[in-house]
């Protein structure tokens, strides 16, 4: 079957899927069935925290797809993540209905506060989940498509492309900070009540979102793995290593880059959409260039060109971040920098490189 073919010769991927299956079954049980006093009880806070890590991991997989397999170092991937998150946030805002502070049945609180009389056109339709779900994929995908079409057609590569992606996310951040954009300005979107009719405060919903994140990560991983094991994946690696050569044997390099980049952006958008209901807020800070850079560091630490390495990196670094910022917040950036330097010096293939046998 397809899944077996895709995971053949992929020990890391097999372990990852096993891990996700176990986690998606055990953690909900420990949260919902084990009584609160028991040492085995997992708090709802922890469930959401891990759920957040899983969405980060999906984002990291998306980055590894374009960086490790296509050679495009995108320093703006958090922008696609945040766009997916904003679409989800808009859907959740529309679900609040008249339970907001101002009690307006249609307008979200911040619009009432700004004295707006009616809903901007781009907020329409987002009260329907199916429409929001389409937009979650479409909005980041469309941005990536247009951006990629312009950049790849002009054959912008390497560090120049990285800088442009960085500028892209920075520009979006500045735009979303503005109140008149209609996305809640610097407060962003928050105070969500329910998703698909389930209260976001309830344990069961949070567990459901956690499981959804695990499933999304597993599916996203399989999809990426399917791409990289196909002939298309071999073409992308060929483009990474010798772009001109690939052109001269008849491949339209621009189209391949565009396709994979757009797909990766859609994955990032989906990750963002799962992230927002679990953390309960989305604001322009998510577009911050620093986020995109940090995310590249996760992938570098985990080990690029493996896909599962990106997951390891995202989970480990974020877990470390949670621990360390709890104890000594000021030290985090130094720790992150130190980790990056050490991994680059001693583990150039990242953590996944330790496990990986040398290619024959």
């Amino acid at each position, binding site marked *: 079957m397809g899944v077996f073919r895709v995971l053949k010769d992929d020990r890391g991927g097999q372990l990852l899927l096993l891990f996700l299956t176990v986690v998606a079954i055990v953690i909900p049980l420990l949260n919902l069935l084990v009584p609160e006093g028991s040492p085995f009880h997992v708090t709802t806070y922890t469930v959401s925290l891990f759920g957040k890590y899983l969405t980060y991991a999906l984002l990291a997989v998306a980055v590894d797809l374009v960086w490790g397999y296509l050679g495009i170092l995108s320093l703006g991937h958090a922008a696609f993540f945040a766009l997916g998150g904003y679409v989800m946030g808009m859907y959740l805002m529309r679900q609040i209905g008249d339970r907001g502070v101002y009690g307006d049945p249609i307008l979200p609180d911040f619009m009432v506060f700004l004295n707006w009389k009616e809903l901007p056109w781009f907020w329409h339709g987002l009260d329907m989940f199916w429409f929001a779900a389409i937009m979650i994929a479409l909005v980041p995908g469309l941005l990536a498509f247009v951006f990629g079409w312009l950049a790849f057609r002009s054959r912008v590569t390497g560090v120049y492309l990285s800088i442009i992606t960085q500028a892209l996310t920075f520009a979006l951040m500045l735009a979303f900070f503005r109140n008149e954009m209609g996305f809640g300005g610097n407060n962003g979107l928050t105070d969500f009540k329910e998703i698909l009719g389930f209260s976001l405060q309830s344990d069961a919903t949070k567990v459901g979102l956690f499981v959804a994140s695990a499933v999304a990560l597993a599916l996203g991983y399989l999809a990426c793995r399917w*791409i990289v094991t*196909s*002939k*298309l994946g*071999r*073409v992308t*690696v*060929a483009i990474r*290593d*010798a772009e*001109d*050569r*690939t*052109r*001269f*044997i*008849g*491949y*339209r*390099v621009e*189209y*391949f880059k565009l*396709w994979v980049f757009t797909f990766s952006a859609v994955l990032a958008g989906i990750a963002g959409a799962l992230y927002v209901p679990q953390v309960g807020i989305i604001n322009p800070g998510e577009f911050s260039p620093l986020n995109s850079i940090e995310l590249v560091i996760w992938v570098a630490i985990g080990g690029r060109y493996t896909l599962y390495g990106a997951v390891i990196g995202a989970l480990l670094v974020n877990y470390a971040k949670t621990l360390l910022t709890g104890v000594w917040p000021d030290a985090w950036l130094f720790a992150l920098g130190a980790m990056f330097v050490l991994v680059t010096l001693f583990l150039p293939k990242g953590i996944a490189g330790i496990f990986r046998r040398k*290619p*024959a």
Partner: protein
Amino acid sequence: MSMLSDVRETMRRDEVWSFMAPPPSLDLDISHGPILYLEELNVSFDGFKAINDLTLYIDAGELRCIIGPNGAGKTTMMDIITGKTRPDSGKAFFGQRIDLLKLSEPQIATAGIGRKFQKPTVFEFHRVIDNLELALRAEKGVWPTLFAKLSSEQQDYLDETLDLIGLKEQRNAMAGSLSHGQKQWLEIGMLLVQQPHLLLVDEPVAGMTHQEMDRTAELLVSLAGKHSVVVVEHDMDFVRSIARKVTVLHQGSVLAEGSMDDVQNDQRVIDVYLGG
């Protein structure tokens, strides 16, 4: 001024707008003999004339050697044919109808021109067999590639080619682990499986042993007839062993053309090569 000329170019009445014109034809028509027409080409880089009024015809099925001192424009000529460099003026046609100057690199490759580079470039992170698979003549769009599967005939064909280029043992080795000579052979193999009508081969025997050189010569000679082959080479012994017709380039244009003996006895050629 330039805007005005842009507008005029767009509004020309003798042809439809470029985006409305049908896509360029990729059918090769060699009914008049030559497969490649280069006429009055000029290229200059920052004032240096790399190609100077170059006119050259290659007949279908011919094996042509091109020699010339460094900087004679051999590689630039190949760049023009394969779409990497656009000439300042002149014409380049593949067969009667295919205007090379209007096509992109992948389109030219699809039309049937294959190129081997001076420095062997293979995909080092892929296995030898995958290198051939990537080059194999097939639909090369994004979707066909995503769902591509090798048929058993294609599989056999790739294995035959591996045999031919003597890399059967290295079938599953990483291309990056091959020796220089083996990479040259792999690249020739990649050229073959593209099944081009015209092969441009830039310095095929650099870094090869004498034995390997002889085999390369044999292979190239056997290709001529079915394909047209253009070989750029510095190694005179090698050129002598394969050449029927030799073209000498000098300062971006053709200095002499003829059999190896004619060319070697040509006074101008001797002057250029020996610095007379």
